């Protein structure tokens, strides 16, 4: 998400405003400290005009596949 935000020249504060969340929420999602709910994930996808899968990795599935 951080990459997509940088590509679009959005600050964390601006993205927070677009998503109607606090800046701390954006920071927590970007640093992987917080996984957004499905409605918020869809909202993020809408802002970046892409699909959820292109923004968020299925880390659990990826680690299982690696094993």
């Amino acid at each position: 998400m951080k990459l997509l935000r940088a590509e679009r020249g959005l600050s964390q504060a601006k993205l927070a405003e677009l998503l109607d969340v606090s800046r701390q929420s954006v920071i927590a999602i970007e640093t992987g400290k917080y996984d957004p709910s499905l409605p918020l994930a869809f909202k993020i996808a809408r802002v970046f005009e892409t699909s959820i899968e292109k923004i968020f990795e299925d880390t659990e599935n990826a680690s299982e596949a690696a094993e």
Partner: protein
Amino acid sequence: MAGQSVRLANKRYRRDFALTMVVYVVAVIGGAFFLKTFDTPPVWVSALVALASSIPVIFVFVLMGRLLRETDEYTRLRQTEVLLLAGGITLSLCVTWGFLEMAEIVPHITSFWAGPLFFFLMGMVQLGRSLVEKKEIET
């Protein structure tokens, strides 16, 4: 610059919290002065003054509940964790102290102090968190 509704919710909470604290201070100080006007205040007057001081404190929890409903999901999670941590530590200390008190090992402490302890712990937890998060915020 957070989202519009989240920003409004936080603003509303801070404003109403400050107003509630003003009412609390007025009730405590005003109540103490009012009681001094009596040689021996009637029980109902003392009770009224005590309740007038506790109602703003109770109202703070109403405000916290409203903030939890109106804010974003991450803030809700964080606030809930803070409340649980502060509430858990406060109640654990109170229960432990209570048992020690019943065993006549420690002196009696009025239950009033549970409130200030809870709010102090909430503040400490939030302060600790914000210090950690400050390092993570991009410059």
